[in-house]
């Protein structure tokens, strides 16, 4: 599943306020994201897969993609389970 591109479901929007504050606006709710979650959510654009997102983050933070892959996959899976994201 981690190889397929992910997009936000209709009615789900990412909103960044500043470096530390970002929200996911969802049907009838607002979720304040941690800095890590925000960094992942920001890269969900309908073309990147969770693996590609881990890759991009690894480049940005000069880290091993393998170390990030599990965290990214877990966050993306939680979005999918809530219906906030789907395969593009």
């Amino acid at each position, binding site marked *: 599943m981690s190889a397929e591109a992910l997009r936000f479901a209709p009615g*789900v929007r990412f909103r960044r306020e500043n470096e530390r504050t970002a929200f996911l606006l969802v049907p009838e709710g*607002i979720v304040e994201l941690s800095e890590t979650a925000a960094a992942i959510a920001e890269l969900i654009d309908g073309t990147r897969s969770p693996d590609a997102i881990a890759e991009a983050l690894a480049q940005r933070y000069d880290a091993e993609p393998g170390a990030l892959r599990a965290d990214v996959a877990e966050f993306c899976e939680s979005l999918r389970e809530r219906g906030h994201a789907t395969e593009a």
Partner: protein
Amino acid sequence: MSAPRPLSLLCELTYRCNLQCPYCYNPVDLGAYREELDADAWRRVVGEAADLGVLQVHLSGGEPTLVPETALAAVAAASSRGLYTNLITQGTFLDDALLDRFVAAGLDHVQISVQAPEAGLADRIAGTTVHERKLEAIDRVMRRDLAFTLNCVLHRANHDRIEATIALAERLGVRRLELANTQFYGWAFENRAWLMPTREQVRHGESVVAAARERLRGTMEIVYVLPDYFEDLPKPCMHGWGNAFMTVTPNGTVLPCPAAAAIRTLAFESVRDRSLRWIWESSPSFTAYRGTGWMPEPCRSCDRREIDFGGCRCQAFAVLGDAGLTDPACAKSPHHDAMRAAAAVAPPAEFVPRRMRALQ
């Protein structure tokens, strides 16, 4: 204390409605709100809310599509500021043309409620023939690029139909279903004995929902809201008074909670007279129960005081006559028995339908 950032604004555009549901939380003195804000006033309110940090704007009423131009103006104003917009409607006025205009204005999400899974019971509760037309409206919404939530308010008369309600949602292909037990405010408080589910119904509902969630994981999200009267912990109402939410009523009165107008011991301000910022940050009504400083015992020394915020001020007022007391829904309240007693009252044969004329 300094005021926190509001995140959510509920715009009640009109209290007029073509339905007469007995569980409505609108105030019983609907006629007092006939002087409605116009589209320009709502544009200003939405703009001021965005300046304060609000991210989500909910349009409701009454029935907001009875004032379509006002509703469209509010959506467009919110959308132009990047805010998320949600239309809470009974749906039957949402024809293709109006829906397309809402989409063009930037609408993100629609919530339509059904009164029951089948027309006979649903139309009896609504007091008019609407169920089949609602299903058509739901279909129109789902054929567009809009997020959609199906809602059903639960009470004694439809609680046993919860499985059929979930089945209806499945048949319609709904991704998000909200099964919300009645909140007893306004008209619902008047009809409390008629609406009150039994403990058995609530427990049955919980197990049905748990099984359905398991079965529909990844396909449908089901929100199940328990009734306060069977709980031992109060709900974290509005995430605290004047903490994240505000409501503007049809005549411009600003409330910390949609049911707060019933609290006669507070005077609420209007956007006709004051800025939304002053009302949110400094008005006596919004500061009355903000934070934890107002709390009596047992809240004051409770380690959950910043989790449930003392529960609901409107419920404390409705049940106990004092909005400054611990919500009686809490088992630690010395008045918790009042909730148990109310839940045990035998239901009357008929309910009082929601109407514009005042109750006697």
